[in-house]
């Protein structure tokens, strides 16, 4: 009779073994290597690194393998590992205008200094299943010119700023908080907001960004510039006194240009929303940029009426590790609370003395 409320160590151990079996699948099929995941599922690796807040493609690929392809679970694995790491240094701000570009586009100008670079993209592919991939074989690959070079590509929004048409971003020089070390308190600074959005769930930010396009906090955006490529990371150790490069990371940056009507004291200007993600992750960067801009409603004295404009709503719910954890905890036993509710509902359903008379 009492078995119903017992879990037991044996059950947990057996569940873990079953999980390992499910992950491995049919053992007559070769096991998936971490390096294969890293090389052949780079977009999944990018998402796990971005929302896991750790740039390590090998560990992200390992997490994807261990989680059997459940990316939210992989993000959780990487985050839990990241917490235990020692912080040696904060890097200097990365300079994305010096990026080694793989892809760059601007939807605001037909041509921009440095040109547009389509690069690897699903855009303009016909979404037809490619049955040749069912068979493994050589792939044709692109033709490349050994002497091809990319010109200087200044940031598109910088060109607008020269004319004073876009609101300049101010560096307050204040030290930047780390939301993984200090609790987020509201109202948050923009730096904290951007950190939370960078870790935020791609699907959630995509949906919220989409909601602003459909009129919930309407603020019509243009994709001012999206660029994907490698940037160097520099640190300046105190004992050295000069900066050194510690390597390069691939990032996707999105700057949205949004309308702004101006005010009694300011001429009309464009404003911007900013998105940045590790690896090639355009959907994430665009969603983030849309939501960043909509969360600046207060800054531009816009009416705050829609979910995407409400800082507490967005920041408290954008983290998929937190959300998945709290939703999944409903699977834990709630016998006691439910018993209390049962007792209460029975009591409430019993007619009171006045009603019975």
């Amino acid at each position, binding site marked *: *009779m009492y078995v119903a*409320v017992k879990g037991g160590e044996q*059950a947990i151990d057996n569940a873990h073994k079953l999980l390992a079996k499910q992950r491995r699948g049919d053992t007559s099929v070769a096991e998936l290597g971490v390096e294969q995941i890293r090389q052949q599922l780079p977009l999944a690796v990018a998402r796990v690194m971005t929302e896991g807040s750790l740039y390590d493609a090998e560990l992200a690929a390992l997490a994807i393998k261990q989680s059997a392809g459940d990316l939210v679970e992989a993000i959780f694995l990487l985050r839990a590992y*990241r917490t235990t790491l020692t912080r040696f240094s904060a890097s200097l701000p990365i300079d994305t205008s010096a990026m080694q570009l793989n892809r760059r586009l601007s939807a605001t100008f037909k041509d921009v200094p440095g040109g547009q670079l389509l690069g690897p993209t699903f855009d303009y592919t016909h979404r037809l299943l490619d049955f040749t991939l069912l068979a493994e074989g050589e792939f044709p690959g692109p033709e490349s010119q050994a002497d091809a070079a990319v010109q200087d590509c200044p940031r598109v929004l910088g060109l607008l700023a020269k004319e004073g048409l876009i609101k300049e971003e101010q560096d307050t020089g204040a030290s930047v908080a780390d939301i993984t070390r200090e*609790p987020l308190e509201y109202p948050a600074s923009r730096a904290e907001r951007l950190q939370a959005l960078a870790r935020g769930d791609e699907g959630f930010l995509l949906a919220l960004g989409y909601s602003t396009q459909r009129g919930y906090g309407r603020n019509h955006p243009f994709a001012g510039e999206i660029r994907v490529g490698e940037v160097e990371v520099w640190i300046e150790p105190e004992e050295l006194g000069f900066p050194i490069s510690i390597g390069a990371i691939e990032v996707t940056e999105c700057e949205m240009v949004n309308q702004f009507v101006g005010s009694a004291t300011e001429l009309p200007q464009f404003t911007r929303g900013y998105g940045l993600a590790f690896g090639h992750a355009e959907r994430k960067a665009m969603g983030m940029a849309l939501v960043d801009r909509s969360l600046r409603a207060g800054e531009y004295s816009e009416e705050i009426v829609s979910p995407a404009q409400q800082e*507490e709503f967005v920041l408290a719910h954008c983290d998929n590790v937190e959300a*998945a954890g*709290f939703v999944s905890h409903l699977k834990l036993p709630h016998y006691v*609370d439910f018993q209390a*509710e049962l007792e209460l509902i029975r009591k409430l359903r019993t007619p009171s003395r006045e009603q019975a008379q």
Partner: protein
Amino acid sequence: MNAATQPRPQPQPQAPRDEAYNFAYLDEQTKRMIRRGLLKAVAIPGYQVPFGGREMPLPYGWGTGGMQLTAAILGAEDVLKVIDQGADDTTNAVSIRRFFARTAGVATTERTPEATIIQTRHRIPETPLHADQIMVYQVPIPEPLRFIEPSETETRTMHALNDYGVMHVKLYEDIATFGHIATAYAYPVTVDERYVMDPSPIPKFDNPKLDMSPALMLFGAGREKRLYAVPPFTRVTSLDFEDHPFEVQKWEHNCAICGSHDSFLDELILDDQGTQSFVCSDTDYCAQRVSQGRAAQ
């Protein structure tokens, strides 16, 4: 000092700790940060202290707040008990107890009087606590006003101004609608005549055990990154009205195993006809009563 009067030997660690991790998993700086937060929480009973909650290797919502507090206060000599729904053998309690047995190598126990730290979800043990014990509660939503006012900025202001009118209005509306206060668990309390506090989702049956308890009560909410405390011998009163005084649940049944008629009972459904049976939710209390009953015979 119930533990001292027991003839049983002190629980010993079952296995050496896993040296790959720091003692109790968290690094020492993090534990210090949490302990500073706890000192503040003890100094301001019932006040929610924001803390830099870490990602734990267990999911949010599964006790990460409680685990971080336990990790911060755990010493090598401590004896840890972990319960979920009052039981030591529910899967998540087993999982958390194993986590600390592995990362801290501490002794664990299922017996309430032997434990120095008791981490719990949803219950306070039936066996009275003593002064050498610390209760650590796992908290999902630390803000008692959250379901009345969703904004954190607003609720912090309401706490600061001691403005709890909305809570009383909510309770009054319950009485007007149902004739009773329709809250069965996570029933709000006032701590030390100042802060309104969510006692975590314990049934209101357990609320009186918080009042003037000799044990230190610590509450940790990992996802929400808040911790709070009730120091020993602090007044904890459940919100009520003079003409509708606070009262706890009572059962018409006795425990089917130990026969207890004053412990919190879980309802079991035994067959398709819906035949009910009731057993103690606190498995250690139930087992103690059974063994005492045998000894008396």
